């Protein structure tokens, strides 16, 4: 017990506590700073770039999480069937997850390049467009592009975890339901989904947390540009806290992420994991 408590204290409680404390100070790089109460938060509340980063983060997290869930579940259901070369396909699906984020971000950087994008080139070759797509230069395109890159990278985690969950569902339940005349949709709706929900809850909690705190992808692709259109709270926190030297303000931005993260966890915990029907009762 003691080693575990010590580990939690050193690696979790202390950094978190320090971050919260720094958010209440005017600490700068190389200077501890003094307590200034909620001044950093007051500044942020009046900061258009901060609110833009909040909007971007929510949009990024919600869109990417929904897409990752839908596509990941679909992929898991496919992979759960008796396909030839099943192991091979499962390994392939894992690839985007295995590749270091920075490398995949660089690959997407090339794919989205305003002059050398292979996507633009291919579409132009096919005669579908007549000019290159400004993937990362236009704010809307840039948001969609970084979301797409995050979805590509995050699908394997969702797919493989849900696949593991699918494999724990006893085959006999499907057989019984089939004998009762259940359709494929009914099998999914009344057998698969309820039994998979605990796994979905855990998987999506992690997926939301990973997405909400994403940093590397944005840092490599856009540095938050164009005109802060893709700045997430994490990247803005880094930019202000480390590059800009305003540690206190950077910490305050990071701390401002906590309520959102807590909300995601609580939603998962109370909304999905503890539903009565999972323990045999009705909703």
């Amino acid at each position, binding site marked *: 017990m003691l080693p575990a408590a010590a580990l939690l204290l050193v690696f979790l409680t202390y950094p978190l506590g320090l971050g919260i404390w720094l958010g209440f100070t005017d600490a*700068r*790089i*190389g*200077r501890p700073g003094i307590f200034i109460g909620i001044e950093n938060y007051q*500044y942020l509340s009046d*900061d*258009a*770039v901060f609110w833009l980063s909040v909007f971007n983060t929510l949009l990024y997290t919600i869109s990417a999480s929904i897409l990752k869930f839908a596509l990941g579940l679909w992929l898991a259901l496919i992979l759960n069937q008796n396909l030839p070369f099943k192991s091979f396909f499962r390994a392939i699906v894992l690839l985007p997850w295995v590749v270091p984020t920075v490398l995949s971000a660089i690959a997407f950087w090339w794919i*989205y*390049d*305003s*002059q*050398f994008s292979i996507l633009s080139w291919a579409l132009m070759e096919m005669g579908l467009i007549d*000019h*290159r797509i*400004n*993937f*990362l*230069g*236009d*704010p809307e395109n*840039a948001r969609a592009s970084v979301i797409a890159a995050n979805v590509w990278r995050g699908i394997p985690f969702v797919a493989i975890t849900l696949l593991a969950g699918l494999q724990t569902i006893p085959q006999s339940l499907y057989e019984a339901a089939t004998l009762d005349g259940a359709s494929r949709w009914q099998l999914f709706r009344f057998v698969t989904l309820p039994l998979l929900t605990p796994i979905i809850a855990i998987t999506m909690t992690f997926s939301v947390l990973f997405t909400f705190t994403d940093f590397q992808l944005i840092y490599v692709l*856009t*540095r*938050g*540009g*164009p*005109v*802060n259109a893709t700045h997430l709270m994490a990247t803005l926190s*880094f*930019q*202000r806290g*480390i*590059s*800009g*030297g*305003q*540690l206190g303000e950077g910490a305050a931005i990071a701390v401002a992420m906590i309520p959102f993260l807590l909300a995601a966890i609580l939603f998962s915990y109370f909304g999905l994991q503890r539903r009565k029907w999972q323990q045999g009762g009705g909703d």
Partner: protein
Amino acid sequence: MKFTRRDVIRTTAGVAAGALGSRFVGSSAFAQEGLTYKPEDGAKLRMLRWSPFVQGDEDQWLANTKRFTEATGVEVRVDKESWEDIRPKAAVAANVGSGPDLMLVWFDDPHQYPDKLHDVTELGEYLGTKYGGWHDGPKQYATREGKFLGLPLATIGNAIVYRESWVKEAGFSEFPKDTASFLELCKALQAKGHPAGFTHGHGVGDGNNYAHWLLWSHGGQMVDESGKVTINSPETLKAIEYAQELYKTFIPGTESWLDVNNNRAFLAGELSVIANGISVYNTAKTNKDNDPKLTEIAKDMRTTSLPIGPIGKSVELFQVTTAVIFDYTPYPNAAKAYLQFMFEEQQMAEWITSSAGYCCQTLKAFDNNPVWTADPNNAAYAKASATLRPNGYAGPLGYASAATMADYVLVDMFAKAVTGQATPQEAMEEAEKRANRYYRV
């Protein structure tokens, strides 16, 4: 007193002869005059520098380091990082009090954590006196309240890089020297299918260099001498309106460009005019892959200073790198001896030469390094240290200037206006508000 390169060599040689009896006997490369640092027993140094843009820079730096080790027995491990990652690494090192003993940092970094840096005033003054004085701009980045927080190592110049044949094809016998004619050239180039391209994205070097040139050349400034934010001004408005016109002549996508995009597009033959360090020319000239297209581009490439705006003189930001010693180092004397060695005539002259025009000298005695006349394209970068204007002009360097730049306040102001996301007035007002947060009004 005029200080020529010949004088430096003569002085250095004389001092080397006089250094008999010191621990550096026999090492002409370690010639010193009146200042000697005795490295601590068992000293070992770790240094972090930026990844080279011109290979000769790193090769010579390492060769000089090897010489230092041979002369003193002090081992120096030189690590490198992408130049944009140096700032966060230095910030963390300063904050936690652990990391490399020395670092080559950028821009206002030394002013962000002055208390964490070893005072090198004695060495700075010694080198300044010996080598004809420091250029003022780089010196400002490295000094605070009269003290040297580090040694200004080099200025990475930024200049117009263009395709001569295309400029001529557009009807211009020579590259325009003023902003009005420059705009006309860019329009003509675009009409000929050879657009220009300057970074409006979050490119630390290219984005900031371009934005500051736009602002300063039209007489605008972020703050006045007292640090009062003055970005919302008629001069800034003129700069934005000029940027809007220029932007119309650009290749699409410059809003997303980071530091490498313009080089890449230029070398691919997509662009006629960019603003960049000399690395782009060196890449084409070196042409490691023997690409005939690149050889052709290299032959057609020319460089010149950015055009002069309504204020009537050349004003640019450039990137300045400063060598700092962190106070936590257990070997401050070894670190100072190392820096002294690297700045002495033989090492510094060879390093500037090997950097092939990428690193501009900060000490005036090296102004006549042969590298600046070895290739006509190098000349545009020769006076970078002499002409630069520090970040946060006309105010003092410090937390506010560093944070304002790091937050891309100026870059975003132009980007927002040129892309039509805000009117020039709105863009200025937003920049003013953002800058005021750092300058704490």
